[in-house]
């Protein structure tokens, strides 16, 4: 445990359960940057927004992210964070419900809940932390593993293509979508602020560096700085991507704000209307 006197980080002191620090992440893990992105966003959104915010997470390295925040948090089951969060939001629409999920939570075991949360357009902010494989169990293939990549369960290279989360959620009915990497932490923070204020299902994918597994197995870059450099060099902002032909974009990470719709009514608003109808009003 780090003594309070040595805990210099202002954000940590203000927002985190410093009594259970240091956290469990590997040295160089990008999840610490994601925690910082969340806290920076709330530092700008203000304490009132923070006080109305509750967190829900699944199982995996990403599931630990909100447990260090001094707020109500549910560490649910693998893949089921959105089901818990959906009921929480439906029961208490005034709360900001933020769900932190990983590759498996969101697109593997929990994929069904993800598409249905988007379909309902329920006012939840989903932070989807992806790192191209399953890390907590030691580096196996995920639905986000690039085709051809070697992992602990794809020793001859993966023969499955990876999901494109933005396209999946666009089709399913989400109304705010953005993708960034931990290299783009300022942009991610700005998107998160918008997502928290957005009325409807908002998802932000943040590709983060897992030097321990993705770095070693997939990118051959065990140094987290090299992974961030790789994120920088291989990401293409959507605005730039529009001017390029698809061949040039192969293997690149498209980043930016993918969608911001205001034409769909949020689920809990509809619930209120339904209740009025049921009561004959």
């Amino acid at each position: 445990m780090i003594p309070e006197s040595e805990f210099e980080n202002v954000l940590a002191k203000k927002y985190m359960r410093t009594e259970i620090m240091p956290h469990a992440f590997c040295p160089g893990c990008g999840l610490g940057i994601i925690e910082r992105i969340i806290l920076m966003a709330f530092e700008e959104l203000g304490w009132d927004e923070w006080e109305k915010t509750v967190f829900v997470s699944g199982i995996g390295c990403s599931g630990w992210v909100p447990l260090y925040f001094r707020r109500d948090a549910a560490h649910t089951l693998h893949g089921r964070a959105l089901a818990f969060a959906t009921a929480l939001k439906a029961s208490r629409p005034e709360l900001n419900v933020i769900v932190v999920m990983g590759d498996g939570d969101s697109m593997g075991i929990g994929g069904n809940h993800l598409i249905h949360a988007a379909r309902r357009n329920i006012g939840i902010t989903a932070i989807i932390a992806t790192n191209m494989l399953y890390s907590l169990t030691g580096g196996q293939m995920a639905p986000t593993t690039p085709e051809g990549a070697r992992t602990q369960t794809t020793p001859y290279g993966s023969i499955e293509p990876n999901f494109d989360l933005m396209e999946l959620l666009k089709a399913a009915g989400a109304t705010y979508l953005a993708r960034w990497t931990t290299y783009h932490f300022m942009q991610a923070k700005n998107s998160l602020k918008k997502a928290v204020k957005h009325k409807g299902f908002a998802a932000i994918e943040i590709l983060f560096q897992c030097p321990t597994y993705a770095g070693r197995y997939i990118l051959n870059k065990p140094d987290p700085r090299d992974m961030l450099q790789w994120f920088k060099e291989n990401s293409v902002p959507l605005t730039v991507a529009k001017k390029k032909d698809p061949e040039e974009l192969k293997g690149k990470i498209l980043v930016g704000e993918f969608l911001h719709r205001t034409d769909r009514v949020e689920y809990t608003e509809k619930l209120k209307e339904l209740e009025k109808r049921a009561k004959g009003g």
Partner: protein
Amino acid sequence: MYVEPGIHLMQGDEAIVEGSLIAGCRFFAGYPITPATEIAERMSRRMPQVGGVFMQMEDELASILAIIGASWAGKKAMTATSGPGYSLMQEGLGYAVLTETPIVITDVQRGGPSTGLVTLPSQGDVMQARWGSHGDYGIIALAPSSAQDMFDLVIRAFNLSEEYRNPVVILADEVIAHVREPVKVPPLEEIKIVERRKPSVPPEEYIPYLPDPGEWVAPMPAFGEGYNMLVESVMHDEFGHRIGTDHAAAERTIKRVYYKIEKNVEKIAMYETELMEDAEIAVVSYGSTARTSLRAVREARKLGIKAGILRLITLWPFYDKIIEDIASQVKAIVVPEMNMGKIVREVERAAKGNAEVMSLPKVGGVLHHPDEVLSVIKKAAR
């Protein structure tokens, strides 16, 4: 808002809905499944009328997590399902157990295994109700025998779930869910409702999983009330902090979620007896089978056989003492069940060899005929 006091002709599935609303249920999540669908259908009409939320979820995995989420939002919450859905819910049920979340699950049993006998009754899930989720824990399961029971027991189920901060299972079956019979609804002021105990200390003094002295569970705040709860599915200590290799803390948590139910069996157990005063043969039965058994016992009395019946209302925690008592009085115990013989194992264990225990299994999706029970009673009396 609520069904009027008085006597109503109701289906079991309707009675359980009306009872749950009176108990304070304000969130229902479910997925349609025969023979529990009528519960969801009626909930979808009734829940918004009382200011609650009904949600049809994408599957049963979501349904159980949704009611857990709603419970932490401060609502009393329920789901209803049948065998296949109940199997899917087992992991979520364990999450509710370890996080000490009050929820009510109704399993309207149909014949299994697998998709099984979709429209026909069974009592095949009674052991699953006790042991279905992995690990060690205590669970409360109640077995209704009538539409009236569906109304009364769902209120009792909500009360117990709040009192012990634990999931409570209602093990109905297709017959009880679909039977249509008179249900007496008492005036509201005569119905005992247990409300959730909220923390009385400020957040900085609140320890989320440490019961107050003399209590088995801690008070429970809702999300958004400033208590910074950690609803932790990983094995945790009294603070909700994950336990790495602290074996002693893990043992404390596991033993508490086990013993808070098992050691309170006297308070939780409900049963009824009929014609037991001078009985030499006892029929131990539960659910819809108890109705058949009662008829068989009355027929046996007409033949001069001293038979009586014990109807178990609480199946879990299993009340050993009542079986022990009966075993020391009678010479034989007959246990008819709509399964291959499950609760009979508990009866045998609790009888400790003091009476002969005779299993009367029945599978295939049909109730025992009273004559089948009677013939075993006759055999036992010889």
